[in-house]
């Protein structure tokens, strides 16, 4: 199931969405999410649905992939639906002793569920269509534009973290196997004993991570790294016509949502 998580995965491609500047995608995501949270009517959610499907189609990412990405969240989804279904006051349409479902509950449940689904899906879409480098570059530029301090350092941290995730997973496996060969048991026992059994795994991992950080820092210094000052980038982020178009589309969507919410 871990393999099915789509947030964080990148699938190379050549769709319109893939080719957008990462900054456009990040900022658009912000406007999309706000528009999503503004919607509170059937018409509103219809609008969001149409727009979401439109974006997914533009990205050429298969619906199956996105659906699979929701699998790990099924518990939260069920919880959201049930809570709203059973706890919202209003016109009762079904009852069985203390449990009751209202019309409003049905509406709220459906809306909240959709909100959750769309949130996860579109965020996944961001990472699915944007390479890690482009993503961290985009985040760095957006943070810089917002005058966030240490924007460059944050972006560097993200890049390095992303680079080492597969390596760390490999290393965890290796250490697990070495300890299992000495009779360690990671699968059985109650919560407390399982937590304890993680020590032979976590201590070596921590230690190697510290050593790794040390060696990496030395290597980076040897390559003249001294922070973000006067640093250039080989790959430049350039806004194109499609980016301005995308901004326009998202802003229209946002505008429509606002209108639907406050003037209808």
């Amino acid at each position, binding site marked *: 199931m871990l393999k099915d998580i789509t947030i964080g995965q990148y699938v190379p491609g050549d769709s319109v969405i893939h080719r957008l500047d990462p900054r456009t995608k990040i900022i658009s995501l912000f406007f999309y999410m706000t528009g999503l949270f503004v919607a509170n009517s059937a018409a509103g959610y219809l609008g969001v649905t149409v727009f979401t499907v439109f974006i997914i189609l533009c990205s050429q990412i298969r619906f199956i992939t996105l659906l699979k990405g929701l699998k790990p969240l099924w518990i939260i989804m069920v919880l959201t639906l049930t809570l709203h279904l059973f706890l919202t006051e209003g016109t009762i349409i079904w009852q069985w002793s203390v449990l009751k479902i209202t019309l409003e509950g049905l509406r709220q449940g459906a809306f909240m569920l959709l909100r959750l689904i769309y949130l996860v899906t579109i965020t996944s879409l961001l990472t699915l269509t944007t*390479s*890690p*480098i482009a993503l961290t570059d985009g985040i760095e530029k957006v943070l810089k534009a917002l005058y966030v301090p240490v924007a460059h350092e944050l972006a560097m941290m993200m*890049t*390095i973290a*992303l*680079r080492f995730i*597969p*390596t760390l997973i*490999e290393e965890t496996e290796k250490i697990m196997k070495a300890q299992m060969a000495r009779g360690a048991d990671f699968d059985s026992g109650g919560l407390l004993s399982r937590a304890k059994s993680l020590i032979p795994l976590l201590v070596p991992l921590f230690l190697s991570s510290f*050593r*790794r950080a040390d*060696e*990496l820092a*030395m*290597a*980076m*210094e*040897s*390559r*003249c*790294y*001294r922070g973000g000052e*006067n*640093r*250039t*980038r*080989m*790959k*430049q982020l350039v806004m194109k016509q499609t980016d301005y178009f995308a901004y326009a589309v998202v802003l229209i969507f946002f505008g429509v949502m606002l209108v639907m919410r406050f003037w209808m």
Partner: protein
Amino acid sequence: MVKNVVVVEDLVHRYHTQQGEEILALNGINLNIAQGEFVAVIGHNGSGKSTLAKHLNALLLPFSGSVTVNGMDTKNKELLWSIRQQVGMVFQNPDNQLIATTVEEDVAFGPENLGIEPTEIRKCVDEAIAAVGLEMHKTRAPHLLSGGQKQRVAIAGIIAMRPNILVLDEPTAMLDPLGRKEVMQTIMRLNREEGLTVVHITHFMEEAVLADRVLVMEEGRIVLEGSPRQVFSQVKRIKELRLDVPQMMQLRDVLAKEGLLDLPPDVLTVEEMVVALCRF
């Protein structure tokens, strides 16, 4: 007159252990390396060879004595970044040198730090990747590469900064035989074809024999120095230092010992041994 690009004078490096002991990791090193030379530094762990390497790009500074590279004193803070651009360093662990998510991004890291203009960076990166033979792997992620490939990426990342001295601190220690071969071939090529001065720290004798000059270190001092032949023909001394002696030299030694065969003292390779033996 070939220039000396590395001049080390009476270098001493001192540090204190956890128990408060004072250790002289380097105890008076004197060394001159000429432009284009390929120098190998061997010695067992703790002999000070890694410490010496780190002085060459100012990762470490002398307690006393001096280190001058391309005419720049490493103690001069203002020259630090010039020194590090001109003296490239490759380390032992291939994984812990690569920071980016693709090969070309990683190779670009050095030039980016130097503030080089983007189109120029592209050129440096492409040339460096070609120089190590990894054009096919430009957009691959580091964790999918073999150890030897990772080290070659690390080397590319360094030469993209256009240094004239390349210092390698046991670059093959964690590689398999194939990876070692790849890396050594790359280093030899860079030395022979691009004229890069190479300082190669290793404990593999079969790598040391490829150098123009071999330095043997023990307890912070240089105890033997000379061409590979000169150094490795001193079989007894090398064995006392618990280092590897080339197999053919060992064979030559046991044959000569029994007064049985008088072979030339500097037989290094299998071919040379065959030639020497066939004269009987």
